[in-house]
């Protein structure tokens, strides 16, 4: 394997002293991780990375840098899942600079190569930080989705009447989920009335109202009429002062009122039965 002279000498030097450098690197990394990873595990990970670093530096092999980045990204994601901070992972990468510096400290002619190496390690440290952030975002997104699913039940209230109790903020993500579940349930049950209960929605502003109106529109396209219930006094005042118009959509204070309304619209009344 031909070694590119610009990085060659230091790469050779590093390869010749692999054991010593990786040993020192492991020490520094383990110290930073404060015992959460065993020394042998750390050593194994670092040996593999070290080999990739040398290949990338010697420049003989185009894929080496790509593989190195991929390996570090994977390491970062795994650390993210295991609760390490991004700094801990990045510092682990930067620690190699210290270990190598100790090795080449007395070789003045290696300074230019060391600088190039150092810059490469800085980039890689940043990479681990970014990958960590992305991995955490994905975890948060997954959790948010799970929570959303849990908090959007669709209830069969009566023959032909279904109810959707909305709890929490009604943002566009939840609205989307509500619309999907509501429409699917309309098809499955053949219901022609849906009650959207907003008792659990803390604030109703113009955006929330728009989401409600969108949901009502969608349900209407499937032949179902919606009733919005759970309008609390303060919410009523906010709605009026914001100038929000519910138009021809029926609104009621409670779910019970909404159910009675839906039943009467379909020609049914609840009466007390005679003496038992």
């Amino acid at each position, binding site marked *: 394997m031909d070694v590119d002279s610009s990085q060659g000498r230091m790469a050779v030097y590093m390869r010749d002293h692999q054991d010593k450098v990786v040993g020192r690197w492991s020490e520094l990394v383990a110290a930073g991780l404060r015992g959460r990873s065993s020394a042998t595990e750390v050593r194994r990970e670092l040996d593999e990375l070290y080999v990739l670093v040398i290949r990338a530096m010697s420049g003989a092999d185009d894929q080496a840098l790509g593989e190195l980045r991929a390996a570090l990204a994977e390491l970062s994601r795994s650390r993210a899942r295991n609760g390490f901070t991004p700094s801990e992972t990045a510092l682990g990468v930067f620690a190699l600079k210290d270990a190598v510096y100790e090795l080449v400290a007395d070789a003045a002619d290696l300074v230019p190569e060391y600088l190039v190496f150092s810059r490469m390690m800085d980039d890689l440290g940043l990479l681990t930080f970014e990958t960590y952030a992305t991995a955490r975002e994905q975890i948060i997104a997954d959790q948010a989705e799970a929570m959303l699913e849990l908090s959007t039940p669709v209830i069969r209230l009566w023959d032909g009447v279904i109810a959707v109790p909305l709890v929490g903020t009604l943002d566009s993500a939840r609205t989307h989920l509500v619309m*999907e579940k509501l*429409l699917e349930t309309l098809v499955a049950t053949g219901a022609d009335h849906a009650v959207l209960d907003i008792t659990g929605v803390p604030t109703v502003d113009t955006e929330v109202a728009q989401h409600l109106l969108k949901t009502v529109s969608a349900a209407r396209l*499937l*032949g179902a009429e919606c009733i919005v219930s759970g309008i609390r006094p303060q919410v009523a005042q906010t709605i009026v002062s914001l100038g929000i118009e519910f138009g021809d959509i029926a609104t009621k204070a409670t779910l019970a009122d909404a159910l009675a309304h839906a039943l009467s619209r379909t020609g049914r009344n609840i009466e007390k039965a005679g003496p038992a």
Partner: protein
Amino acid sequence: MERVPISKIGTTLFVSIQIDLQDESVVRLQEDLADELAATGARGVIIDITAMEIVDSFIGRMLAMIGSISRLFDAETVLVGMRPAVAITLTELGLSLHGVRTALNAEKGLELLNGSA
């Protein structure tokens, strides 16, 4: 060009759109329905779109127009069987299809028509 067949049962015209319609066919349907309404004096039109995977702004507008044309012949139109994904997309598009009533299926569509007869 595909022509959508129109059936008549009692005083109601039935249309079932089974295929991916190109614009010409929708316009043709509008014309054919107008002819049928004039010729038969039907009081109701049921358009079954269960098989339609998308309804875009053009088709949506055509469907709304069919509703208006029917009314001129003193007939009521009911659009039935819209798929949830299509309904959500139409709502996002901002198309409300005013002028056409809707129902979950042909049976409910008929109930609607007979109720308002």
